[in-house]
């Protein structure tokens, strides 16, 4: 079983117009830069993107928005992207804003074969409209359904040729969850190694969740808010 692909262009073969994609990352931290670039180059259209954020104007999913490739975004926070806001207010783009914890759990549930669950998040707010309410332990909860995708694009620090992944610091975020919830999960890694080189005790995403893997190149790893303190 070969999961290894030469590059992003080859690893995304099979994506089609109208598909639903999941893209890992929090802000620009841990986003699948190579896959996004390949999707932009391919020009696939009318896609639904499930991603915590929508990138910034000139990077991340913002690049797909610029080319009008996205029909719908499912996100929790989209505040850093003026083009996104413009397309949303003009009606060109649909958006489903959902609480971040519910987005994470709905994705995890999708990958774990749990079709729906009750959560207190959003009860009594406009996002609860039309959703079933049940009381547990004296507290109202709303029914949220699982999310899955045709393709999940994730970014890891290290991966082996069996698809096992290790993430670094807060670049982990949604990546392991989305890896579970993609029909086809494409992982791009900074360092691709032979099976056996990663300690099984420290694998974050087991290879069973990853169908395709490739060594990424030219990572920009942009920082949105560079905050530092002076060296003493």
């Amino acid at each position, binding site marked *: 079983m070969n999961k290894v692909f030469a590059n992003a262009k080859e690893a995304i073969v099979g994506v089609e117009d109208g598909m639903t994609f999941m893209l890992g990352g929090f802000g620009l931290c841990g986003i699948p830069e190579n896959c996004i670039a390949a999707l932009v180059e391919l020009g696939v259209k009318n896609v639904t993107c499930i991603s915590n954020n929508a990138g910034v104007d000139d990077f991340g999913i913002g690049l797909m928005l610029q080319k009008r490739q996205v029909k719908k975004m499912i996100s929790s926070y*989209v505040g*850093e992207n003026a083009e996104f806001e413009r397309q949303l207010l003009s009606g060109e783009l649909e958006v489903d804003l959902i*609480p971040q914890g519910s987005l994470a759990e709905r994705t995890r549930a999708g990958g774990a074969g749990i079709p729906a669950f009750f959560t207190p*998040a959003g*009860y009594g707010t406009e996002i609860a409209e039309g959703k079933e309410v049940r009381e547990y332990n004296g507290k109202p909860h709303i029914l949220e359904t699982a999310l899955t995708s045709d393709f999940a694009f994730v970014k890891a620090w290290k991966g082996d040729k069996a698809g096992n992944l290790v993430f670094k610091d807060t670049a982990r975020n949604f990546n392991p969850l989305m890896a579970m919830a993609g029909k086809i999960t494409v992982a791009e890694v900074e360092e691709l190694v032979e099976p056996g080189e990663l300690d099984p005790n420290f694998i974050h995403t087991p290879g069973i969740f990853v169908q395709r893997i490739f060594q990424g190149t030219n990572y920009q790893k942009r920082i949105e808010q560079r905050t530092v303190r002076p060296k003493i």
Partner: protein
Amino acid sequence: MLDKYGIAKRIAQELEDGFYVNLGIGIPTLVANYIPEGIDVELQSENGLLGMGPFPFEGEEDADLINAGKQTVTTLPGSSVFDSATSFAMIRGQHVHLTVLGAMEVSQNGDIANWKIPGKMVKGMGGAMDLVASAKNIIVAMMHTNKEGESKLLPSCTLPITGVKCVKKVVTNLASLEIKDGAFHLLERAPGVSVEDIINATAGKLIVPDFVPEMKID
């Protein structure tokens, strides 16, 4: 009257040894600078970090290590990192002791609005709805009035709400107040602020005891 640093200092007095604390963006973030001597707290950042350290030294910033405000941060001895579902399990499962959030409006029954201004601001709720729905203890840090001078402590929220009946305490530039039984209960006045000032700036139901002490801020 307090400035935003004063509000953060007052809220820092609420921290207890051993607390796991989630600080929202804005004034809440400043609370980290005033953790009292001898009090050990661990800061949780919902993008997947427990035991958040200070900003990195210049030149040591790492794009892979940020907080929920997307600022570069550091880890500390004893820190851990995890995925977003685990992070919100900590929040939804009530393992986090205290959440400090900013708000645009708070109502007298504890509703909070801080995510959306219809027609103006479409940014999303991020983790705020999960936090307010599940936190054991929520303190709101905000100015008492908005830029137009209108009260942000209301009988009921006019903006789309983030959560219902969840705020327990509010610390503003004028006062600290507890929310219970459908009313704001005045606990303390900010330095130099009169009870009259607070009454005038509060649109919601306000219970004022006979004696209202002044806050002690260093």
